[in-house]
C-alpha cells in the first residue's frame, strides 16, 4: 500500500490535482507530519484506509497509537479526545457517518464547546471532528444526513463544510490548526471529485468563498450543493443571467458580510441546502440579512430537503428529494423574473 506522499509528491505551496478523498488524506498526513500531537481516531480508521479510504497509508506511516481504532462508542471516544486535548494532544476524530453525531450528543453539545468557558478560559480544546456526511450514496435514512446545521447553536464550537478538493485540504488543515473544537463536514458524494489543491495551505477561519462573480442573483450553497450551484450558474449564463455563487464554508462563525456584500449588489438570493430548511443556515442567512436591512429586489428563495420526509433509500426518490441543478436554475430564473 502506498502513501499519498509517494503517489503525489509535492512541495509545499505548489498546486496539484487531487481527488477530494486524497485531499483529506493529504491534510491528515501533512498535519500529522508537522506536529506529533496530531492523531486520528475513530471506528475502523486504520483498517484498509478507513471505510471511505480517506486514511490510506496513515497507519503504516504513523502507527496504531496515532491512527487509533476505537470501539463503537461515539460519546465515549469523543470524550477521550477531549481529555487528550486538555493535556497537549490535537485529536482528529472521524465519525463514519454524520448520522452518528447525535450518539455523541453530550460530548458535542455539553462538553467540547463549553469546556473552556466553564473553566474561565483555562484551557484550549483543539479537537477536530471529521463528519462524513450527505446523501447520493444510497445509504438509506440513517446514513445519509449532512447534519451540517444540527450543531450551529453552540457558542464555543466552530462548524465548517468542504465543497471541493481544495477546500477539503485547506479547511481541514484550518480545523486541525484551530485551538477550538471544530466540527468539519465532508461530503461522501464528493470523494471522487478532482480539483486543485495547494499543499501546505491553511484556510482562514470564518470566511465564505465567492466562487463565481455575477450581478443578477446570489446563490449560496455548501457541500455537494456548491457544484450543483456552479453548474446551474453555467446554464443561467447561457440564458443571459449572471449568478454569483458563494460557498458558505463556515456555518459558525457565519460569514454574513460576504453574503451581504453580494446581495447588496444583486438584490436576489437563492439558498441551496441539503437539509430541511427550518432552523438551518439557510434560514439564518435570510433572517439575518433581512433583519440587517437588506433591500430585497425579490423575495429570497430556497431549495432544501422536504420538511416532512426522511431521506429515502430508493435511488429514484433519493435523487428526487435533493435540490437539483434544474431546480436551482428554475429558482434563480424565478427570482430574476426572466
Amino acid at each position: 500500500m502506498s502513501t499519498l506522499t509517494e503517489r503525489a509528491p509535492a512541495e509545499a505551496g505548489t498546486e496539484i490535482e487531487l481527488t477530494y478523498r486524497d485531499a483529506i488524506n493529504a491534510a491528515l498526513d501533512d498535519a500529522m507530519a508537522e506536529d506529533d500531537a496530531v492523531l486520528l481516531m475513530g471506528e475502523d480508521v486504520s483498517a484498509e484506509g478507513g471505510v471511505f479510504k480517506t486514511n490510506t497509508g496513515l497507519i503504516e506511516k504513523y502507527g496504531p497509537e496515532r491512527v487509533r481504532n476505537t470501539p463503537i462508542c461515539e460519546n465515549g471516544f469523543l470524550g477521550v479526545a477531549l481529555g487528550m486535548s486538555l493535556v497537549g494532544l490535537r485529536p482528529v476524530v472521524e465519525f463514519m457517518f454524520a448520522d452518528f453525531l447525535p450518539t455523541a450528543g453530550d460530548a458535542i453539545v455539553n462538553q467540547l464547546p463549553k469546556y473552556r468557558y466553564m473553566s474561565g478560559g483555562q484551557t484550549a480544546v483543539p479537537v477536530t471532528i471529521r463528519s462524513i456526511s450527505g446523501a447520493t450514496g444510497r445509504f438509506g435514512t440513517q446514513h445519509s444526513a449532512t447534519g451540517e446545521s444540527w450543531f450551529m447553536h453552540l457558542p464555543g464550537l466552530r462548524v465548517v463544510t468542504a465543497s471541493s478538493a481544495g477546500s477539503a485540504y485547506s479547511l481541514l488543515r484550518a480545523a486541525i490548526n484551530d485551538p477550538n473544537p471544530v466540527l468539519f463536514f465532508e461530503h461522501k458524494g464528493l470523494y471522487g471529485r478532482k480539483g486543485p489543491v495547494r499543499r501546505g495551505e491553511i484556510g482562514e477561519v470564518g470566511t465564505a468563498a465567492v466562487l463565481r462573480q455575477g450581478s443578477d442573483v446570489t446563490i449560496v450553497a455548501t457541500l455537494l450543493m456548491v457544484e450543483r450551484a456552479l453548474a446551474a450558474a453555467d446554464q443561467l449564463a447561457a440564458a443571459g443571467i449572471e449568478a454569483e455563487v458563494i460557498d458558505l464554508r463556515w456555518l459558525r462563525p457565519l460569514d454574513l458580510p460576504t453574503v451581504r456584500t453580494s446581495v447588496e449588489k444583486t438584490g436576489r438570493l437563492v439558498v441551496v441546502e441539503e437539509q430541511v430548511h427550518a432552523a438551518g443556515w439557510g434560514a439564518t442567512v435570510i433572517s439575518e440579512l433581512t433583519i440587517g436591512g437588506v433591500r430585497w429586489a425579490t423575495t429570497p428563495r430556497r431549495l432544501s430537503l422536504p420538511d416532512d420526509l426522511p431521506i429515502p433509500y430508493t435511488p429514484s426518490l433519493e435523487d428526487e428529494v435533493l435540490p437539483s441543478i434544474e431546480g436551482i436554475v428554475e429558482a434563480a430564473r424565478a427570482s430574476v423574473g426572466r
Partner: protein
Amino acid sequence: MTDPSTQTDQRLDWYRTMVRIRLFEEKVQELFMSGQIQGTTHLCQGQEAVSVGAIAAMRPGDVQTNTYRGHGEALALGMEPETAFAELMGRSAGGSGGVGGSMHLIDFSKGNIGANAIVGAGLPIAVGAAVAFQMQRKPNVALTFFGDGATNIGTFHEAMNMAAIWKAPVVFIITNNLYGEYSPMRTTTPLDDLARRADPYGFPGIIVDGQDIATVHAATTEAVERARDGGGPTLLEMKTYRYRGHSRSDPAKYRPDGELEAWKARDPIELLGKTLVADGLIGPNDDVEIRSETQAEIDAAAERAVTSPFPTLEETRPYVYAD
C-alpha cells in the same frame, strides 16, 4: 510511605484538609440561606476521606476529573477557599472567573482538569488524559471521581472498556454514597458491590472503606502506582455516605430512620481524629482548636470573596474561544 515522619505530617495535614472541606460545605449552606450563593449546590459532608485520601495519592503532573459534587476534590487539590467561594458567588476572583459556579471548581494548574455537571462525562475525559500520557511517554496517571449513579450510564462502560483495551493509566473512583440523586442504589442497580463492574473488563475492582482515610489512601496509592508502572486501570469503590440530600432543595426524606446516624457514628473526620489522639499527634482537645482555627479561616475567606466584583460580559467573552 517509607518515611514515618512524612506520614505523620501527612495525616495531620489530611485532618486539617478534611475539616476545611467540612466547614467549607457548612458555610456554603449558610451563604445559600443569605442569598450570596444562588442556583444549586451539591454538598459532600461525610465523604471527605475519599476526596482527601485519594488525592493524596497523586503526584505532580497527575490529573483528575470530578463532578458537580466536587468541592472536596477541589479543596483537597489545594484550591484556596476564597477562590472557591468567589466562584460559588459568581464573582471575578473565582477559579473560573465566576462563570462556572458550584458545579465547576476547576484549576488546571493543580491537576484539576474538570468538574462536570453531566453524570459520567468526566470518565472518558480522564481516560483521554491517561492515553495521552501514555502516548507522550509521561509517567503520569489520571484519576476520575464519580458517584454510584454514574455506573449506570453509557460513558462509564465506554470509558472502562477503552481503558482496558488500551491499558490506560487511569484510576476510576466510585464515591458510592448509596443514592443516585433521590433514588436508593438498589432501586436502580442490580448489585450491591459496584467494584464487581470491573470484572467483565478484566481489571481489578476493589471495595474500600471510604470512611477510613488511611485505607482510602493505601488503596488509591496502590492503584495509582500500578497504573504508573504500566499495569493498567483499577476501579475503586469507596463505600461512603453523604450527610445532606442530593442538592440544595433535597431534604433527603427518602432515607430510612437511623441510617444517617449510623454513618455519622463512623464519621471520617472523627475516625481520623481518634487515631491522631491515640498516636499522640494531637492532644485530646486539639480537634476543637483546629476546628475553630479553620472556621476563622473559612469565615475570612468568605468575607474576602464577597468583596470581589461580578464579572462583566466583556471580561468573560475570551472564555468562549481560544485565540
